[in-house]
């Protein structure tokens, strides 16, 4: 199998897009990635394949077959093109498919663009749309939503491991602090820990969304796009930037209905995906310098940090309390601000996580740089953990 690297990254500002179409949003990220790699647009561009990851383009934006549209928008014809939908893990899935296309020898150069324009519908409609990935009879028809499942999961974890609402807030504040140094982050305000946990008005400023999850334990709804340009490592010398190698990819699935899981406090697919990625890369959790974990709800960052092997089960919240997951700590998690503060445009998120790790390994993450980072891990979490993709990137020694 050929080795695969990333030679270009692009990322729009996450938040609310004002004006423009979904194709515009994707194009902005794509052009940034092409420019970053030094790819000339127009005839002779050399891109064999385009993958676009999105969950809601057909439903929210009334645009299906969006990859075909993007190829034409960018005049990359006749490049091959597919749209990839794997819930909130669509982005990492698209990168995995790009990896496979190059590793197999079918392609030399693949553009992956992930995006979502979710703020075109009401909050109620958006919540309903995201909930369509739940089990139709056992969950969706009851009115269960992603925040509801996260509330059920959080309650169990609190009961079993002693995690508190304040622990969730500590993780949120850490990610908001990191996002202050990320110009593409959706939210660039840091909540005060005392005000959202202990102040007499805390219940007003930080109300329950799905008990025991509060507003500041849940990610925002964002528009945004991110892009990466993948190439065969043996063809990488024709691009501007030195490649960051995709050293490992793992993916695993779990039961569709969350209640069917044997150990309800486990995120088994996270553990299995990470183990697969470590094995492929020939690395362990101790080798990872920086991680972007899927914190759509703050409980997920804590439990994922345990399932990928950074901390023992039941100790992730204690590590967060002790500052071990801050930049400068033992294992910095979500230096980008994570989904909590950078935002979570579903189809963009997996690509955005990889963009952040590429910037970290290149030494380009100004203001939030993890010094000396050479190896990074991403976890992109689909459904409520029923389809998870883990990716390991490494900086090759020169």
């Amino acid at each position, binding site marked *: 199998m050929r080795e695969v690297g990333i030679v270009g990254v692009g990322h729009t500002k996450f938040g609310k897009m004002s004006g423009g179409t979904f194709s515009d949003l994707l194009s902005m990220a794509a052009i940034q990635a092409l420019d970053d790699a030094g790819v000339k647009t127009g005839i002779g561009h050399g891109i064999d394949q385009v993958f676009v990851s999105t969950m809601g383009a057909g439903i929210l934006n009334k645009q299906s077959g969006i990859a075909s549209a993007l190829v034409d928008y960018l005049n990359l014809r006749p490049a091959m093109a597919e749209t990839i939908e794997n819930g909130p893990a669509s982005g990492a899935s698209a990168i995995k498919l790009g990896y496979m296309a190059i590793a197999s020898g079918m392609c030399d150069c693949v553009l992956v663009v992930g995006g979502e324009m979710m703020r075109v519908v009401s909050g109620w409609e958006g919540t309903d749309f995201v909930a369509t990935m739940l089990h139709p009879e*056992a969950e969706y028809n*009851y009115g269960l939503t992603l925040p509801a499942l996260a509330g059920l999961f959080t309650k169990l974890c609190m009961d079993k491991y002693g995690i508190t609402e304040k622990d969730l807030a500590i993780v949120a504040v850490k990610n908001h602090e990191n996002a202050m140094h990320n110009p593409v982050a959706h939210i660039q305000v840091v909540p005060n820990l005392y005000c959202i946990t202990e102040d007499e008005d805390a219940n007003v400023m930080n109300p329950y969304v799905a008990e025991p999850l509060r507003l500041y334990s849940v990610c925002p709804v964002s528009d945004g796009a991110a892009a990466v340009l993948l190439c065969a490592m043996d063809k990488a010398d024709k691009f501007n930037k030195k490649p960051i190698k995709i050293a490992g990819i793992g993916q695993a699935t779990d039961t569709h209905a969350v209640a069917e899981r044997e150990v309800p406090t486990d995120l088994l697919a996270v553990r299995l995906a990470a183990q697969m990625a470590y094995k492929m890369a020939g690395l362990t959790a101790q080798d990872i310098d920086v991680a972007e974990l899927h914190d759509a709800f703050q409980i997920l960052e804590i439990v994922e940090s345990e399932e990928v092997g950074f901390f023992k089960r039941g100790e992730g919240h204690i590590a967060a309390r002790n500052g071990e997951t801050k930049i400068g700590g033992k294992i910095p998690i979500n230096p980008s601000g994570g989904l909590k503060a950078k935002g979570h445009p579903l189809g963009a998120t997996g690509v955005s996580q990889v963009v952040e790790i590429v910037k970290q390994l290149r030494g380009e993450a100004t203001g939030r740089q993890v010094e000396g980072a050479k190896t990074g891990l991403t976890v992109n979490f689909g459904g409520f953990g029923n389809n998870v993709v883990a990716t390991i990137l490494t900086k090759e020694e020169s």
Partner: protein
Amino acid sequence: MEHKMYAYKCTSCGTLHHPKHYVCKKCGNRKFDEVPLEGEVTLVTYTKVYNLPEGYMKPYLGFGIVKFTNGLVVSGQLEVECPEIGMKLMATVGVVKEGIGADYYGFIFK
């Protein structure tokens, strides 16, 4: 008309499933018998949700995951004022979502 909820019992090894699957998770068999799923349950976890999706005209809804005495664990709506993990409840069947033309029936734990 009385509405019932069912467990799906593998005709080969007897393993119970809910919701329905096409293949038994234990032995790979593809045939199941429907067995009524009702009675006493133990509350495994719960939540109260305030941002409901479109179609619900309520300020909040309670949800729970419960364990039946036969070992099956399922989710449903929860109508208990002060829930506590481990408490005993009854699994009833009622309208969990009003639909156009037909309502959806499911578990309501009380």
